[in-house]
């Protein structure tokens, strides 16, 4: 049985997994684009959390790859969110709606 105390990696991983699962769930079920975007952010943050946790518990002492990666992820996630929001805004401006079920002019 894994130890879920604050000094154990298992709890971090569990949280990350929950976050990721929530993200996937949001992506798969949300009809609103913002919801999907939030899901993506959740997934990225889950990954960032794992990086940090793995960096803290697993890596050798002077190895900061994990923490660095987590920082990168946060930055990139922010950039991505910015671009995504801009695009969502563009969609909203043209069609007054960001419902994914409604936004399907492009189709076979």
């Amino acid at each position, binding site marked *: 049985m894994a130890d879920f105390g604050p000094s154990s990696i298992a709890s971090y991983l569990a949280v990350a997994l929950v976050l990721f699962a929530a993200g996937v769930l949001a992506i798969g079920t949300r009809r609103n684009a913002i919801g999907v975007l939030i899901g993506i952010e959740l997934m*990225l943050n889950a990954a960032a959390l794992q990086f940090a946790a793995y960096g803290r518990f697993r890596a050798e002492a002077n190895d900061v790859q994990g923490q660095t990666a987590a920082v990168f992820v946060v930055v990139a996630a922010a950039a991505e969110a910015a671009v995504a929001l801009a695009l969502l805004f563009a969609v909203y401006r043209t069609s007054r709606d960001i419902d994914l079920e409604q936004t399907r002019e492009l189709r076979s």
Partner: protein
Amino acid sequence: MSFANNAVSELAPLAPEACVAVGICAVLCADLVPALRTRTAGLWLGVLACAIAAVLALSPARAIVAQMLVIDGVAGLVRPVIALVTAFVLIAGAGERRSANDHGAWATCVLGIGLGAMLVAAAANLIVLWLGLELISLASYALASWRARDRRAAEAGMKFVLFGGAASGVMLFGISHVFGLTGHLDFTGIGAAFAQQMPIAVLASLLMAFVGVAYKLTIVPFHFYAPDVYQGAPALSVAAVGAVPKLAAGAVLLRGLATMLPPSLVPPASVGAVLAVAAMVSLGVASLTALAQRDAKRIVAFSGIGHGGTVLLAAASGGGTAAAASAIFYLLAYAAANVGALLCLSVLERDLGSCELAKLAGAIRRRPWVTVLLCLFLFSLAGVPPLAGFTAKWAVLQQALGGGPMLVAAAFALLASTAIFAWSYLLIIRAAVLAPAPLLPRASGVRMPLPTAFVLLCCAAGTIGLGLWLDALPAIAQVFS
């Protein structure tokens, strides 16, 4: 100082990337100068940067940069091509008519894709890979929805960003696990960890990490964004968004397979079989679905999905240099034909308003040469000899037919899909050339912009040249060894 000297000497192999990065800055700066803003000056600056980058990247030197980037044979070959293709797209962009101050921003995005692609092509570290892909993606999202007031472009951008974000999230999650389980992010380190033992969890994580690459290569089922984006985005953007990242993704896929799953450890047949099945699925879905499309760009998108599958098949055919060479050659041929075809479509799109098959009627009357070239590129994509597409398919098939039963089966699937794809390309040709033409005036008044014509001719030359120059393949293989 010595640190700086060290850093400079160590980073010297990245001069092309640096050059492109500088180019981006230069374009942005040029946009600030009111006198230059109205012209396409920024754009030409970008072209210049890419050209220099291409020349720099041609150097045969091999290097490893801090376990992050590797300039090996694949990268040495693909990076100049990426720079070149980016330059061509930029040149073609000069022929576009868009609002005056748009050129610079557009060029920035294209250069971003180029830079990201070059990084990805040279990546030897999962985080660098992810960052590179993100760079490509961010620029791509912007490009895809460039026509800001166009509903369809906006929709394309939205779908692209959400799908791409999800893929990148999955990839990153996988990467984090790989890191946690092996303690490494660099390919060689992961490979070394594998050499000791190969836990299934790592393999699973690696496969998740593969999703990001697969999505750029448009492998089924990570291809869904492609048709919609191709359809909604301007054709020229699609040329940048479609072809360039594929080159990079293909290159990194080859490197990843070779270093993380070295054939000495993992029986190549088992990896090959998995990849071959993925390739078969891609080929099958894409070729059949393409038949039911009513938009030329969507057909090209499905063709891209099929070609992604073909590259995967080539990569699956063992880790040898010949297989890698065939994959690279295939990507080169694909890039030439695909950029050419999309450029033709962008010209027709501007003339006729849309790339829907029904609207393409009479294209041959209005733009005879462009339409003829479009046919040429489509025939190349279809693999009609002696065009580049044929030679490339030849190379891939040759590798696959020499492999295990699953690969041979995939090779036959490729053959079958060739015929079906040919049919869907013919649907475009049928619409553009054979359909009864509404009496469109010949577009003699609107001359073809010189830059566009130049790029088209270059693509055509590449398509024919790569087709006829059979010895290109061994030449590429030689670069690797």
